[in-house]
């Protein structure tokens, strides 16, 4: 008889997966899409490569499922494994000289807090492009924090568990990243305004 795992929480599923491969299958089903998106956002790899990374991630999660501590959020635990696997793959590619590319969607622009937003008189499409460029320009650890906070919508507590760092450091990373983004966008906003001004005159 096939057991239905639908009413199970992720944490209950993780406990069940300690001796039930089908329970683990349910975990794969629940996390496949969010983690695939996360891998693509975090690195410069193709969809096929991301699926391979994800497969490796799930196999690793299966092997180490006994490491999962019930006091923790399961999503943080599996995101941490995914993060490590992706970074490891990303570094291999970086060593080979591949160029950085970040998977973008409008979600980032929508989720960014108001305090980063550029002046309203600047074209919104230009904002989105500037934000893309600015986030790509951020150093790795700042970019990771911004992606987790505003794309994956994780709390500071969860980010601390995923990136394995103190809570205070997460807050510092996010705030500095926001400041860097704000400065960067302010610059490009001014440039855009200047561009508009000069070209509308001619």
């Amino acid at each position, binding site marked *: 008889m096939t057991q239905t795992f639908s009413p199970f929480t992720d944490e209950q599923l993780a406990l069940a997966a300690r001796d039930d*491969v089908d329970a683990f299958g349910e975990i*794969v*089903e629940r996390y496949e899409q969010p983690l695939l998106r996360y891998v693509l956002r975090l690195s410069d790899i193709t969809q096929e490569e991301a699926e391979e990374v994800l497969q490796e991630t799930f*196999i690793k999660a299966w092997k180490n499922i*006994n490491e999962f501590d019930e006091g923790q959020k399961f999503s943080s635990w599996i995101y941490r494994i995914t993060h490590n696997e992706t970074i490891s793959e990303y570094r291999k590619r970086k060593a080979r000289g591949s160029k950085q590319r970040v998977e973008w969607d409008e979600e980032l622009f929508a989720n960014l807090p108001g305090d980063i937003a550029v002046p309203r008189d600047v074209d919104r499409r230009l904002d989105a492009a500037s934000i893309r460029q600015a986030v790509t320009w951020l150093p790795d650890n700042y970019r990771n924090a911004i992606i987790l906070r505003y794309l994956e919508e994780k709390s500071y507590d969860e980010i601390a568990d995923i990136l394995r760092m103190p809570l205070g*450091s997460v807050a510092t990373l996010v705030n500095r990243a926001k400041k860097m983004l704000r400065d960067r966008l302010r610059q490009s906003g001014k440039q855009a305004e200047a561009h508009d001004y000069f070209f509308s005159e001619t």
Partner: protein
Amino acid sequence: MTDLKSKITAQIKKQHISQRPRLYFVLKNCGFWLLFSLAVLVGAATFAMILYIFLEADFEVLRYMSSSDFGFFLVTLPLYWLVFFGLFFLLAFYSVRQTKKGYRFPFARLVVGNLILSILFGLAFYQWVGAEMIEQQLAQAMPFYKGIEHRRREVWSHPREGFLAGTVIQSLPEQHLLMVDDFQGQSWNVDIGAVREIHPLIRAQLEQGILEGVRIKVLGDPTGEQAIVARLLLPWERMKPRGMQLRRDDSVPDDERRESALPPFPHRNMPLHYLDQIPE
């Protein structure tokens, strides 16, 4: 069922991929805590050694040294203990960060906590175990390790650089002269006529004519083949506060004691109760 789900469950079943047992993670976590504890304890022992060496170092001679002497003195300090302390500090830091929730500790708190633990245990080591004992054990276990006594001998076995230690063979206070045999058995004439400071204990022994056979240290300026003009005279043995068993002469009233403090050298009838003023 998604592709990935069926692919992964099939792979697990087909390849019989097993899960790491829970005990593995429990032991791994305990292992890092154990490593942290060991690193703190070894760091503490290292701190006790640093404390011991610095308390045993002849810092009182620094103010009598010229800049070239100071450089010479500095290189004889066992700075590698500081490096060891740093390494074990880093190991403790690393291992606690690897424990289950270790990464949650804020950096500054971890550094300060680690330092406080090392210093507290180090002081306990120094007080109750004794850094001297640690050093003796080290010297026995590692033949290449030079104990502090050995290093002090090295420092004070450079009479041509002004660092002389040895045994007083003959004492001629009227001529302001001491005959000293260094640790290599060479005889030296030590002119104490222009000496700037004599340790009170040495001065007392000189006054009483019982300096012969006593081991001393001389910081001075070499003037000839086997001659040195002393700037500072000290006993060879370090004067530890605990070891200073010089008794106070209670028969002497305090007023008289103040008046008789440290008469100029040479002073033939110097009362012995000024020994109370040996700095601790």
